């Protein structure tokens, strides 16, 4: 999924290049070739490395009372939150995720700084996780601050 998303992201860059190519009045096309070449090198390495790296880093775990995730590639984050502080649980499926029957689960706590996102789960697993989290969050009374 990340590979496909990365491809789309890179495609935007190339679209920008094409627009520049068309709009530029200067008859010489050297600048475009140089930038295009650099872009191509960058794009290939990005598409080849980023998804694998991210896949190796990303991890999640949920127990009866807490959830833990590990995300990122160059900048890595590990988030941990007790379920007693959970306020909302969202299940999200983007267009590309739909293609692969995947989904993301976002867990929001009372703090604006700490939403926990679990990316790229199999849809059935995601559904199960959402139900589990919701049950756990409902079980705990209080205003979660």
């Amino acid at each position, binding site marked *: *999924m*990340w590979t496909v998303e990365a491809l789309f992201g890179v495609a935007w860059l190339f679209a920008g290049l094409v627009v520049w190519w068309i709009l530029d009045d200067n008859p010489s096309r050297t600048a475009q070739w140089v930038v295009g070449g650099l872009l191509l090198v960058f794009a290939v390495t990005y598409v080849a490395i980023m*998804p694998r790296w991210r*896949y*190796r*880093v*990303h*991890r*999640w*775990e949920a*127990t009866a*009372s*807490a959830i*833990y995730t*590990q995300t990122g590639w*160059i*900048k*890595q*984050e*590990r*988030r*941990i*939150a*007790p379920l*007693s*502080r959970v306020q909302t649980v969202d299940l999200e499926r983007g267009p590309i995720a739909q293609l692969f029957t*995947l989904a993301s689960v976002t867990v929001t*706590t*009372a*703090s*604006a*700084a*700490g939403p*926990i996102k*679990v990316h*790229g*789960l*199999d849809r059935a*697993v995601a559904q199960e996780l959402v139900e589990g989290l919701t049950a756990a969050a409902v079980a705990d*009374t*209080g*205003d*979660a*601050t």
Partner: protein
Amino acid sequence: MTEHQPGSGPLAAEQTDQSEQSEPAPPARSTDPGDRVDQADQAEAMGPVPETDWRRLDGRMLLVNPLETLIRALPAVLAIFVARAGSDSGQRWELIAVPVILAFGALRWLTTRYRIQDGQIELRRGVITKQVTTARLDKVRTVDLTSKIYHRVLGLAKVEISTGSSAKERLVLDSLRVGQGRTLRAELLHRRGPAVAGLPGPTGAPVDASEVGLPASDASRLDDAGEVGDVELLRLDPGWVRYAPLTLTGLVSTVAIFGFVSQGLRTFGDEGKLLKSGVDSVGALTWWVDALLLVIVVSVLAVFAYVLSFWGFRLTRSHRGSLHTRRGLLTSRETSIDHARVRGIRLDEPIGLRLAGGRRLKVVTTGLRAERGGSDWLCPPAPADVVTDLARTIVPDDDAVFGRLHQHGGAARRRRLARALVPTSLLVLVVATAILRWDGPLTLLIALPPLPVIAVVVALDRYRGLGHRVTPDYLVTRQGSLDRRRVVLARSGVIGWTVVQSFFQRRSGVATLVATTAAGQQHYDVFDVPLERAYAIIAEISPDLLAQFQTPERAFDTSERPQVPDAQ
């Protein structure tokens, strides 16, 4: 946490009868608090859930509202006047706006009403779109009373009730009579008054002092019923004004005023010349006179701003524990913070204040966002010992308030230095080559070498400022050099943890530990702690949390753990 006590069942949010809300309000809609008390008392005698009257905004808001609209529309009004000045047509069609504004004010007064009922505060308003906002009383976190100068003339105050951390979760009553506002506040925060007397306090129990880490002695004092009255914790000493020029506020207001004035002058060309001659005469002076003038102007403005916002500053703690500040020369502001929502404090010591031995204090609480108009001030810039004493009253933990902090070690220091040196050296190189290449003013070259030196000094000071400490009830973190701050956050206020490691941080084995919370800035960071230390902090503060994910080494080490099949 907020557990309903047995017996408060019928007051729960879910059981509010929907039909009640559409019922017309009882005919006698008196705004007199005393009158209302009587009625409610009777109602209480009749049934378990008293039907409370809808209350209205004060009638005098009809005067304030058009004025406020006018001020908000001032640019448009001026534009109309300027445009009108040229034409000589006698028709004043824009005057139609006046009755429209008045009518809107009246409609707002007619449509806005509020009441406290079933353990909820309800606010109905809306001229075109009807809106009913309800909030459970046990969610009320802070109550703000703001009176701008025209409010004060009429004895009014705008009441803002905050129930959550976002701006959406606010109930604004603009405006009530000051006394009425205070009664409402007492009802909301202290459960005073008939409609709320039977309800559990903001924390569930009357005031659960242990939850915020107050020692037992404090707790018993808090429960000493109404007679004790409010305890004054701090009163502004006019001499503290001397700290005003040492903060950035003066500079900021100078820039703002200068921008405003210059923009105004640009509109009227004639005065522009005057300004120009003024600038010329200033420019003719030697540079140090200019600098001196600037310093004087900035200082005067800073003092002015200080007096304006902190005049008559008073911090009190009520017998039920809520903190209460009052300040302002022209616009008076009263903020009440339910003490059960206080999650800690923030001691600020920007470099100017630090050198002069001053500090300032803010509160970290849910319901007040750090960036919102400064209602979280507990103490304006003041001498350090005053502020420290105050901090100790609010956070009764000496180690947390001024104890020594753990330093973050060599890696953190190296990172500070690298982050200071790399950009400045690059800047110096770029500027130097630019000057040499394009024959720039050579005198500028002299100014370049000190830059990296300054950067190093700041970096070392930043490292000295960096520190953390875990006490039995609090997590303390300090950071920064030019704008150093020490945050004392209650352990119970920490919701979750995030450990962030950038590429370079991973290489040097340090991490930024982020404690997420519902209070204040929403997250407070401990920068560049060694990784093991970060997990040790988490383990110490929330042991049950980390224990579930095996031992830190195994749980967090990517190489040793089997891959979790989390799909691709």
